[in-house]
């Protein structure tokens, strides 16, 4: 179980996260909702070790972790906002590069790439340059990279943003399938999507948690969201 405890983050004088606490249980999807600039991406960046928190801690199975440590980072698969990729590489080259940086042994890399490519349905485009892929396939390549090394937790920052409705359904189904053996933290702007795939929803507004509740207990999410973030 991953627990976020009393996380605060300031950039210079500006406090962007205030006393954030929540937990993600095994085999569950937690949705992070909030208006633009609420602090969702900053929070995700702290969990993956890209930023360090000004205060507070992250716990893994009850033990405090150094988010910049190799051990912590190897537990995490991260798909940042806008899915940054190296456009000049092929999907296969990109996955190989990420595999090497994830310390996957040379003997296992091919097998690992084959596995995640199959999971994400990109076997047929691995030899294609990423730049030439459709947005949906690019998203799958980013997701496949996050899945390399079988991380225990997936952090997905707006994984369906900018996709067409068919692609959204495909990626959503993929994420749902992945939650069978992983913890997933997903940020999204699409409320119906959050309601459909997340067991628990956290609404962040101006750096603070405005709601942390099981999805099934939230009645009229749209209205609640507007009330809490207006």
């Amino acid at each position, binding site marked *: 179980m991953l627990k976020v405890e009393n996380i605060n983050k300031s950039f210079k004088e500006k406090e962007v996260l205030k006393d954030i606490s929540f937990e993600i249980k095994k085999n569950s999807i937690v949705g992070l909702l909030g208006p633009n600039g609420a602090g969702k991406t900053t929070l995700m960046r702290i969990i993956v070790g*890209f*930023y*360090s928190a000004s205060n507070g801690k992250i716990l893994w199975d009850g033990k405090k972790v150094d988010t*910049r440590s190799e051990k912590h*980072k190897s537990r995490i698969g991260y798909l*940042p906002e806008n899915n*940054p990729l190296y456009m*000049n590489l092929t999907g296969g080259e990109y996955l190989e590069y*990420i595999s*090497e940086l994830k310390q996957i042994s040379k003997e296992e890399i091919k097998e690992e790439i084959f596995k995640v490519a199959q999971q994400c349905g990109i076997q047929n485009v691995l030899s294609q340059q990423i730049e030439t892929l459709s947005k949906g396939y690019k998203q799958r390549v980013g997701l496949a990279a996050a899945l390399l090394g079988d991380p225990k937790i997936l952090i997905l920052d707006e994984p369906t943003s900018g996709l067409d409705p068919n692609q959204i359904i495909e990626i959503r189904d993929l994420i749902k399938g992945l939650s069978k053996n992983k913890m997933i933290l997903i940020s999204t702007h699409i409320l119906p999507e959050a309601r459909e795939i997340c067991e628990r929803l956290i609404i962040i507004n101006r750096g603070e948690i405005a709601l942390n509740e099981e999805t099934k207990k939230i009645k009229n999410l749209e209205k609640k969201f507007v009330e809490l973030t207006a």
Partner: protein
Amino acid sequence: MKNIITIAKKEWRNYFSSPVGYVFAGLLLVVVNWLFFSNFFIGGQADLNPYWSNFSLILSLFVPAISMNLIAEEKKNSTWEVLLSLPINEKELVLGKFLGCALYLLFTILLSLPVIITVYVLGKPDVGLIIGGFVGILLLSLSYLSVGIFVSSLSNQAIVGFLGSSVILLVNSLMGQEILLSRVPSFAKDFIGGLSVNFRSANFSSGAISIGDLVFFISWIIIFITLTIISLKSRNK
């Protein structure tokens, strides 16, 4: 170390996966050789000093051009966010990028070997001077590269990296030129001149290899690489 090599391999491949790497290297050699051979036969001496001098001048534009993207592009495309969420740290990222680009520079410098061999066959210059020139130009290019990677880390705009490092290298080059040194008080002359990487590199090509110069180059490179790492870490502020 494994991460450094992985990143270096990717950087190295980047230069050769598109025409850019070949065009830059080709252009550098054409200009340097043209400048050198346009006066070579008039002088009638197998002297490689003008060759190294031309090389260092062109490198002050070439290195900012090939290093301007090293970190700036990772920042612009947010791929550094992916990299730094993996089990690697800022030091490995910077050293990997530096090593990959340094190997490309070494490759480019080695392309000048046919010219050196030609001059050697024609006039048998001192081998020590040739080796000194090579070492000097290699250390000079690595010093330029360390400035290039540092300035590249300050912004996500490649052009800022190019202009910033070109200006720093130009000012540093001027610090070793008589045109500037003649205007400073005599007690400060040696100090200011000694801070110029071109001035130090010229010592090598004239055969005067000293521990002091070597320590200067190594310190210069370490300082700028450390500044690059600090610059990447400052994202937290």
